[in-house]
């Protein structure tokens, strides 16, 4: 019942709907731009490279806004004292986090669905989905796509969507302690945005130290920037097949630990 109210608060947030609409419109323009200027070979790089990354970052930003709004709205509206002193008030934060994850999943589905529908409706890929990836590429090295099993484009695309969704949820989970403990939503957003930008900078600008570069590449952001090498053994030049899948699972567990630890510490703190 209370969960329904939290979802209602989110659905009434105009900013979320505006963000989704603007994002889909921007992605539509990007889709048209992609298809007008490049050929088949570059399409895959865009489809699974920059376009996929664009969608990921859009969803991540939106889901962060949703998380920070739902955890901070009581302090913003001044209702924290009344709500948290009620019988079930202490349970409220868990319901809020659940609402944030559900709303984030819905936002992910909406943005990805409409963005890709527009992309695929403009360019007809029928007959291509069932083809093996290695054959489609021609020159695998051009994309850095090296697969340890010859999967089809459809399988690679679905796998990529699944990884993107999981990484999105991991990002929300890792941001949870910040959302719980920094009561000012704007400062929390700035802090997370700063961490993301710093991480991207490290990934892009500091490859000189091999070990440091490899460590940075195994963060969730590093994974998403290397999304062409999922389910592969070649991307990080390491011998283990599916290495990226393993570290994604690791970050999923780490994210869960962050959420549970954050909640435990939060329950012992002054609420307002």
């Amino acid at each position: 019942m209370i969960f329904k109210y939290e979802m209602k608060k989110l659905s009434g947030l105009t900013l979320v709907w505006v963000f989704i609409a603007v994002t889909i419109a921007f992605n539509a323009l990007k889709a048209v731009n992609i298809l007008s200027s490049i050929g088949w070979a570059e399409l895959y790089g865009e489809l699974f490279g920059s376009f996929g990354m664009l969608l990921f970052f859009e969803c991540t930003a939106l889901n962060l806004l949703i998380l920070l709004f739902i955890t901070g709205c009581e302090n913003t509206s001044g209702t924290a004292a009344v709500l948290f002193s009620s019988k079930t008030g202490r349970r409220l934060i868990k319901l809020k986090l659940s609402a944030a994850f559900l709303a984030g999943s819905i936002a992910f589905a909406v943005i990805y669905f409409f963005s890709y529908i527009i992309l695929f409706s403009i360019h007809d890929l029928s007959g291509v989905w069932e083809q093996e990836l290695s054959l489609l590429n021609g020159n695998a090295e051009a994309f850095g796509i090296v697969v340890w099993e010859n999967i089809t484009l459809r399988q690679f695309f679905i796998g990529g969507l699944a990884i993107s969704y999981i990484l999105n949820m991991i990002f929300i989970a890792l941001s949870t302690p910040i959302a719980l403990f920094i009561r000012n939503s704007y400062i929390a957003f700035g802090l997370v945005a700063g961490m993301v930008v710093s991480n991207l900078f490290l990934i892009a600008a500091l490859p000189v130290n091999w070990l440091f570069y490899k460590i940075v590449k195994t963060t969730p952001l590093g994974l998403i920037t290397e999304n062409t090498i999922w389910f592969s053994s070649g991307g990080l030049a390491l011998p283990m097949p599916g290495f990226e899948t393993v570290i994604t699972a690791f970050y999923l567990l780490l994210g869960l630990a962050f959420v549970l630890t954050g909640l435990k510490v939060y329950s012992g703190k002054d609420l307002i």
Partner: protein
Amino acid sequence: MLTVKNVTKKFGNFTALEDINLEFISGVYGLLSPNGAGKTTLMKMLATLIFPTKGEVLYNGTEITALDEKYREILGFLPQDFGYYKSYSPVQYLEYLSALKDIKNPKKRIEELLEAVSLSDVKHKKMKKFSGGMIQRVGIAQALLNDPKILILDEPTAGLDPKERVRFRKLIESLSHDRIVILSTHIVSDIESIAKNVVMFKDHKLLYSKSPDEICAELGAANLEDAFMIVHGEESQ
């Protein structure tokens, strides 16, 4: 019985309350002290929003944090800055709070409370159009939703006109016979006629927890307002 036992609350290096010992049985208890004395801090601790740095708050011998939902089930709290959602009407807001207070079928109770605080005519209007006094009355209504055994009201008459304040006083008096009512105020007349005990703090420590007559007799004051000026006169100048 609600017991505050050797409670100290510090925020960093600042001591808001030091070694407070109080007992609340039934009736109205008025917290009467200047701004910054620690009234709101004490009320937030009684409402389990913040935790004592030292000491404990007990209800019938058990710490209130250990009682958790069983304690908050019998608690009604009106904070000093009562917040609300601008797009909600009083009915919607009270329904939401009823869900949080785990009240089944709250419609009748909501109707009764809105009638008691004279908001029946505007119960479906969005609260963004309400005056400060109307918002405060919604706040009083929500504090009474679960028919609480412990009612904590922080500056409940702020924004109320004299007629509403009299009406509020009568409401509190009618409720106080079988419950603990703790209210803080700067308006002495709010509590002078209804408070069983007046609690005064000075320098973040407990000064008095006695009946108004006892305090006035001890200080040689004609009334509670004079007693307040005797205790805090230099601070307020």
